[in-house]
């Protein structure tokens, strides 16, 4: 990424100080991973909300189409 030559008027100017932004960035990553898990994986290999298939069956087509392993 660093390597595309760009002759630019404005270079990417901002460096977010990571320790300061860590709370929001970390929280967002956790949120995204939880969402990813429930759409793609829950009630297949592992299950959080007990042994039913509601989430699995509801997003069934999306799960197949987005490339997740499914039955």
């Amino acid at each position, binding site marked *: 990424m660093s390597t595309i030559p760009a002759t630019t008027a404005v270079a*990417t100017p901002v460096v977010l100080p990571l320790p300061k932004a860590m709370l929001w960035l970390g929280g967002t990553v956790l949120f995204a991973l939880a969402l990813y898990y429930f759409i793609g994986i829950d009630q297949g290999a592992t299950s959080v909300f007990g042994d039913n298939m509601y989430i699995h069956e509801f997003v069934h*087509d999306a799960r197949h189409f987005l490339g997740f392993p499914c039955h």
Partner: protein
Amino acid sequence: MEKRIILRGVLVGALAGLLAFVFARIFAEPQIQAAIDYESGRDQAQAALDKAAGLPAGDEGPEIFSRAIQANVGIGVGMVLFGVAMGALFAVAYAVCLGRVGNLRPRTLSMLVAGGGFLGIYLVPFIKYPANPPSIGHQETIAPRGALYVLMMVCSVAFLIGAVVLGKRLAKRFGNWNATLLATLAFVVVIGVAMALLPSLGELAANVRDYGPQATETPLPLKNPAGQIVYPGFPADVLWDFRFYSIAAQAILWATLGLVFAPLAERLLAPKPAQQLAM
């Protein structure tokens, strides 16, 4: 600043998921239906064979949601939420990369991060474990298949990040062009080794036991005890169309993320005249 970047990423992600859903509803659903029809026909043929052999009939899974709900609402909710999740990850990656990956315009960085997400989260794992329509994938192997897919995805994202870091280091010594080529080569070699080491789905113990040595779980022709084919293998054209549309949908999703986020980032990060004066 990070909050504004994340908010934009999530909103653009939802839009990207919505567009990918529209594409899926038009192009993927007919293929998914064809796959389900194949599975139903195969189950009937299998039931007839079992009956002839005097075996008890297998029970079908319960239908919790109708096909109409799954094919119109479920896939929509699933893809929009997937878009939101990818938009959130995209925003975090963008925020971390800002100013750390060289002299790039905000909109150029937006396209590069989106391209990285497409490659790392979807396309590279797909090369080893491609998307499969319903009726491909055995119930007994869902646990190892899920674990392998996640492992492949984690490797792919980690190696991609590693390649970017490597490229950045090498750039000082070899220049941008050569450093990019070297980092790309390193990524291809390392991910290639990982792919070679991870098992194919057909090599999983349960599959070898039940079906013999096969490369994948794609259903083969169903034969009766006399060895005659009574039901064909999974239709190759349906499989190709499904996978092709799966890649296309992810390309739409990530392209939308990159292209729509780009002008927003450009506006967000442009130095404002008043601020410049204040500085």
